């Protein structure tokens, strides 16, 4: 219940006088300071890298776009097709979309994905929706702060192999792309300044631009914020618990995309946050399973054991299973674990009480939630589900569309 923790300003949620709508708006405003937003709007007009109509949902700020990879329609279109193109993997069996399926909000529904050559990956496939706002990528890596640099991992990584692009096949894969008439027509137009328009450099930039373009906020909750939908009473109650000090969820999932690492054009630079949420405590030592130890694997510091990024909760009802290793099956299970202040594993190699993990974030202190409270929080989380991306032509599989026309 947060005892012994510093009181924060604005503990408005403790009192039920405020309507949940006011709460939600306040939360959105907290995430995006009005002054920063005002400033960046004028900057965006000048910035050449925003030659793109973002159609931003209410409360969503202008995404940060690297100066080296300006947005434009042609590039996003190329990236869209490449994202779904299995020719991009070494053996031609996988595309980005193999592990980021539009109908599952760009996750894959598996505990952990399997790479193109059969390697089992250690971590659950995260969504790429609204990744334009992510400050860091993958589950726990402060070194990967752009979509462009992150993409080296699935493309070229060998431990494990994902797409399986190597020094041996990288030329061959580009030739596959070059032979395609659709690409042949567009690459030279979009990358006019390139001597060799079809290059890995431009492939990475195109896919990044497409991923960056997936900025959406069509959920019932987003419509509710814009006064275009109403929440049912259990959903409202869940929202109030989520944003309030009872649920405490908002500490790590309080931004406009329900994470705590989001960034945008003109955003202040904050300390990067990673959290140990008490999911494991192997043998009572505080350890997480070897090969999946979060930020600790990067820094080597014990305090970072089991620390992972808090993911965005938009579409969370579509992105099961949960957590960095996909080890939690349902949303109700997730809420139960947080209510308990950590997960207990009673037998097997990972036995231990996560609630007693010495490296656990103090915010995960256990919450007193009734059965009804838990159901209401889950009801609220379900209002974060967006329109099916596979039915939105901006994001859906362009190869499937083509097949239909035939």
């Amino acid at each position: 219940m947060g005892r012994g923790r510093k009181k924060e300003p604005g503990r408005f949620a403790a009192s039920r006088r405020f309507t949940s709508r006011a709460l939600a708006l306040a939360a959105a405003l907290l995430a995006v300071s009005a002054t920063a937003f005002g400033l960046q709007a004028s900057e965006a007009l000048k910035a050449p890298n925003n030659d793109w109509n973002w159609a931003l949902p209410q409360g969503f700020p202008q995404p940060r776009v690297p100066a080296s990879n300006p947005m434009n329609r042609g590039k996003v279109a190329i990236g869209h097709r490449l994202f779904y193109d299995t020719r991009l993997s070494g053996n031609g069996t996988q595309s980005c979309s193999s592990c980021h399926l539009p109908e599952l909000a760009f996750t894959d529904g598996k505990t952990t994905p399997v790479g193109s050559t059969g390697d089992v990956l250690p971590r659950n496939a995260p969504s790429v929706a609204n990744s334009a706002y992510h400050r860091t990528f993958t589950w726990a890596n402060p070194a990967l702060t752009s979509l462009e640099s992150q993409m080296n991992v699935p493309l070229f990584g060998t431990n494990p192999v994902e797409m399986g692009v190597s020094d041996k096949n990288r030329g061959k894969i580009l030739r596959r792309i070059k032979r395609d008439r659709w690409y042949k027509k567009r690459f030279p137009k979009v990358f006019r300044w390139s001597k060799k328009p079809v290059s890995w450099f431009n492939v990475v930039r195109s896919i990044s631009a497409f991923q960056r373009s997936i900025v959406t906020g069509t959920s019932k909750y987003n419509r509710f914020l814009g006064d275009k939908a109403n929440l049912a009473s259990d959903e409202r109650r869940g929202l109030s618990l989520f944003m309030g000090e009872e649920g405490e969820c908002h500490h790590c999932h309080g931004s406009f995309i329900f994470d705590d690492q989001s960034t945008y054009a003109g955003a202040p630079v904050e300390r990067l946050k990673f959290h140990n949420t008490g999911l494991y405590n192997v043998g009572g030592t505080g350890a997480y399973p070897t090969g999946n130890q979060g930020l600790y694997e990067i820094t080597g510091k014990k305090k970072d054991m089991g620390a992972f990024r808090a993911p965005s909760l938009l579409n969370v009802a579509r992105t099961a299973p949960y957590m960095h290793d996909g080890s939690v099956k349902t949303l109700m299970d997730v809420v139960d674990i947080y209510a308990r202040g950590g997960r207990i594993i009673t037998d097997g190699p990972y036995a231990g009480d996560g609630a007693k993990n010495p490296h656990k974030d103090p915010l995960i202190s256990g919450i007193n939630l009734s059965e009804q409270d838990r159901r209401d929080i889950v009801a609220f989380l379900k209002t974060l589900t967006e329109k099916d991306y596979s039915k939105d032509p901006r994001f859906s599989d362009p190869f499937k569309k083509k097949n239909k026309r035939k």
Partner: protein
Amino acid sequence: MESSKKIGAIVASLALGLLTILALPVAADAQAGHGKKKTKTQKVAIGFKALNGSTPVNCSQPITGLGTTSRTAKLADLRFYVSDVKLLRKGGGSVKVKLPGSSKWNYTKGNSAVTLIDLENGAGACVAEGTNATNAFVRGKVPKGKYVGVRYSVSVPDALSHTDLTAMPAPLNLTAMGWSWQYGRKFMKIELSEGDTPAWASKIYYLHVGSTDCTGDPAAGEKAKCALPNRNQVTLKKFNPARQRIAIDFKNLFGGVNIAGESMDMGMGDDMSGMMDMGGCMSATDSPDCEPLFKTLGLKLGTTKKTGQTAFRVVRK
């Protein structure tokens, strides 16, 4: 063992006798030098080779007697970047070896330069990720003078390491040498594949050295900084490039590790299973094998301390 010691002694006495580098002095900028004071330079070619004790290491021959359990391995990869190369002057001091601009094996930008030493030829067990081309030399120029030794680092300077491999020229464009999780480069990539029975815990034993604990993303306009750069410094006080080579000696490098991994019946908990899937060292600070491997490279794992190395030694050409 006895004969390799003898060879070592002969090599050492040879090195003592021939402290100067025998190389052709050439005039730098012969045409542009009109009116300017000419600085005489000389070419230098610093050669590397791979040995296991006294036996040459290559992709085709089994490597025997490796590590604490004396196992047999097949070479699967053997590449490393060399930077900050200096020749040590007779009587003290050092001069930088100036690389000849950029080529397939060298890249220079501003004050940063790097050479890729590639001692695998893509044959045998090196076929998976290897390349046919090889390069055993750091070639460059130094001011004419008398030199007695060499100093270098097995690393890529920060300014070049955290760069986009899809945008960089050779030798920084290799996916095999990419260190994507830290958006950098592997400084050293040596891989041994299973070459005997009983089966190894992991089919491949990896040695990947690179900077870790990095933050900041150049692709996002930030400057990359790594808390653990893992850049060593190799000093070979007596080295004559005309007559000698620098050997990376697998006998020393892998001397403190069990390349076959812990055997399964040693009562290891299931918690070690992840480690078993991936034998060797990928520069993780808690990897049991990294500590002895790093030590031979002159690095103290988990710190920025540099110590004396034992992996590289001077041998006859």
